[in-house]
């Protein structure tokens, strides 16, 4: 018998597409992928969205989502071909020999059942052990994964624990039936950076202690480098490169892998502050209606013309609220916003057209930031019409210029947002903001929904446009790698307060306060052994604990 736990040979996966008003047809989304996985080893599957990594991961359960089905090749688990197996085989396989950890734990737990009940369910269903034994197993796993009060943790409901804890509970659920293989499908992608490394460390520890094999699916090469033994790079359903972690990170062979490794390496020279800032935020405190505590307390920052101020913090730190105050969507309780030498009125309705024009905003989700029923030309053309009264040929010419500026051609004019890729959508949003010829653009997590390579392209574009147009950016993000790439000055926010503020070189140079240190050290680096190093040197616990 072979010693391979999982053997995938020439796997082909197809999908049945049913476009409206057209004949349904089949497409192939995975084109002959092969790999082996030994007992106790971890293989990282990495690639952009649409690369087929989740689809391949699920094939180890002989499962296809929706209209997806496995059309060719072989998948062997423990020496048995599971694709030709009957229902009994699949039943003994799924949730026992092979288990699955999904990206969103919050959506995967049943909100009306206690956590423990759900964690031990597959043990009980598969009649692997008695009720009490399963419970003690689960409690041991909670302990192993570093969850607080392991003995009583399981008595809580899913909404009573944090996102990072729930993700670890889901890992416990996967490990409880003592599987041979666990599939981790982007288990840390939805978490804050500081929480991500706790979960990552917990998963890594659990894998080592239980000796389980794992498929680790992610789009972040730095993350997968921390937990895997081997890495397989995928692009559009094909294997690009396969090798050990060391080989992929340090000596990538293929151009695509090299690009993935080199991502986040944009260099940006810090600019010196000028005499008059374009935006001056003074002592802003704000709270939402019917909430009795401040979301922002006494926030003061300034931004100089043609420069970028990065506002950094975890979710809930108040960084998006700051944007809402500046744009006038949320009138502050105290403090003022001075823009280009004049004080902006706190309510949106009282601001002049000129105020609105000079202050534009780009959103995180380009999908929802554009009206799906308007063409690209309409979306970009509207600010031209509204602010400058452009019509007809003049407007068309300007639209073409803007499309040129965002490195997209005129052929996109009559397309709808749904017909664009994620990166293209974000580019159109940038063009819409630029169309107003603003002095300041607020960028709210503009790259966090994008694949790393695409995000890199957007950041480069924003930097280029800053040079040409002289526009300032207020850049809201949780990603410190992005900050390093584009900021001139940085404000670190924690629980509604600015805890550290100054030029990039100052903020990113020691000595650090505890929170900045935690935040900085949590950004995954593409180095083997980085995770252990960080965990060993932390000064402060992350909020997820």
């Amino acid at each position, binding site marked *: 018998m072979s010693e391979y736990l999982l053997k995938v040979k020439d796997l082909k996966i197809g999908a049945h597409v049913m476009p409206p*008003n057209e004949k349904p047809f089949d497409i192939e989304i995975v084109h002959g992928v092969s790999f082996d996985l030994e007992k106790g080893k971890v293989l990282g599957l990495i690639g952009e969205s649409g690369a087929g990594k989740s689809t391949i991961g699920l094939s180890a359960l002989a499962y296809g989502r929706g209209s997806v089905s496995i059309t060719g090749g072989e998948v062997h688990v423990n020496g048995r071909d599971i694709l030709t197996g009957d229902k009994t085989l699949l039943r003994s396989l799924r949730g026992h020999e092979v288990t699955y950890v999904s990206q969103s734990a919050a959506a995967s737990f049943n909100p009306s059942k206690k956590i423990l009940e759900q964690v031990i369910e597959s043990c009980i269903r598969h009649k692997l052990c008695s009720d009490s034994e399963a419970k003690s197993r689960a409690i041991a796993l909670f302990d192993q994964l570093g969850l607080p009060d392991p003995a009583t943790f399981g008595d809580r409901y899913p909404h009573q624990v944090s996102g990072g804890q729930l993700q670890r509970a889901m890992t416990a659920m996967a490990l409880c039936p003592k599987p041979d293989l666990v599939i981790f499908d982007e288990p840390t992608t939805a978490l804050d950076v500081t929480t991500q490394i706790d979960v990552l460390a917990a998963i890594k520890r659990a894998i080592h202690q239980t000796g389980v094999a794992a498929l680790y699916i992610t789009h972040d090469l730095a993350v997968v480098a921390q937990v895997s033994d081997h890495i397989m790079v995928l692009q559009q359903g094909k294997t690009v490169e396969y090798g050990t972690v060391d080989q992929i990170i340090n000596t990538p062979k293929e151009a695509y892998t090299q690009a993935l490794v080199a991502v986040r390496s944009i260099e940006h020279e810090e600019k010196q502050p000028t005499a008059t800032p374009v935006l001056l935020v003074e002592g802003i405190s704000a709270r939402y209606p019917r909430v009795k505590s401040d979301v922002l307390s006494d926030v003061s920052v300034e931004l100089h013309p043609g420069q970028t101020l990065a506002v950094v913090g975890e979710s809930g730190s108040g960084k998006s609220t700051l944007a809402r105050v500046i744009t006038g*969507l949320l009138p502050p309780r105290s403090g003022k916003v001075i823009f280009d030498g004049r004080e902006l009125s706190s309510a949106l309705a009282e601001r002049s057209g000129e105020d609105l024009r000079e202050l534009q905003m780009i959103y995180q989700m380009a999908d*929802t930031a554009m009206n*799906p029923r308007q063409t690209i030309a309409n979306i970009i053309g509207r600010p031209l019409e*509204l602010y400058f009264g452009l019509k007809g040929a003049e407007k068309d010419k300007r639209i073409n210029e803007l499309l040129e500026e965002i490195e997209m051609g005129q052929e996109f004019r009559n397309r709808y947002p749904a017909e664009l890729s994620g990166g293209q959508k974000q580019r159109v949003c940038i063009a819409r903001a630029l169309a107003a010829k603003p002095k300041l653009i607020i960028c709210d997590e503009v790259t966090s929904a994008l694949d790393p390579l695409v995000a890199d392209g957007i950041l480069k574009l924003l930097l280029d446009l800053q040079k040409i147009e002289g526009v300032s950016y207020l850049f809201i993000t949780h990603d410190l790698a992005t900050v390093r790439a584009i900021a001139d000055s940085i404000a670190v926010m924690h629980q509604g307060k600015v805890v550290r503020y100054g030029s990039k070189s100052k903020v990113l140079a020691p000595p650090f306060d505890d929170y900045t240190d935690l935040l900085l050290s949590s950004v995954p680096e593409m180095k083997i052994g980085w995770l252990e190093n960080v965990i060993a040197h932390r000064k402060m616990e992350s909020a997820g604990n």
Partner: protein
Amino acid sequence: MMRIPTSALIGLILTSAFFLMALFAPWLAPYGVGEVVGDVWEPASWEFLFGTDGIGRDLLSRMIYGGRTTIFVASAATILSFTLGTTLALSAVVIGGWTDMLLSRFIDLIMSIPTLIFALVVLSVVPVTLPVLILVMGLLDTTRVYRLARAVAADVNVMDYVEAARLRGEGTRWIVFREILPNVLSPLVAELGMRFIFMVLFVSTLSFLGLGIQPPDADWGGIVKDNKEGLVYGVPAALLPAVAIASLAISVNLVADWVLSRTTSLKGGR
């Protein structure tokens, strides 16, 4: 260019047949609407294709003219309720605050009174003419459209592109008609088919009760009322309007289904 599924095609043909019939009634009907041309309850013959009614009028002609009235009243009331309901709902959502609160509670208040009873009370105190009938039916149905449109629009109102339009400085009218309306149309169109059929049933009910279309004008509800005694003697005249209403309802809904499936998938819409 566009492939129309068979079911929608059937619906489309039947619906347009009904509407064309309504439009060209005076040319299609073999006899006048109030003309007494034969004996009481004559069976179907080459002269009278559907037979005659309780006082000897040609049933086919009555059905055609009746369809004209029914479809006209129902269409007018549906258009009224949709324009009014959607505009009110979208404005309420976009303006928000007290406007939304007052309008929504007022609509709730009207909805708490059974529609038919409300209509009967109003129609028994004011003279029943076509405009009054359309107005009463349309206004009562506005409440239903308002509720649906408000629910759907509230979902769209929180989208970033609506916020972006606000930040751009767009007025309420632009936000209502350009940003929100195109994105709530598809569920509303499906509802349009349903509401139209409810309007057909509503006007038929009112006429059956004697408060709708007044004699000698014909409508489908009135034909049932005029001929219901015939059922006792085995005369099927009263069943004809039922068949007409049923086939109209089905064909309109086949079209609405198709429109819904087309618009929801259109350019990545909702």
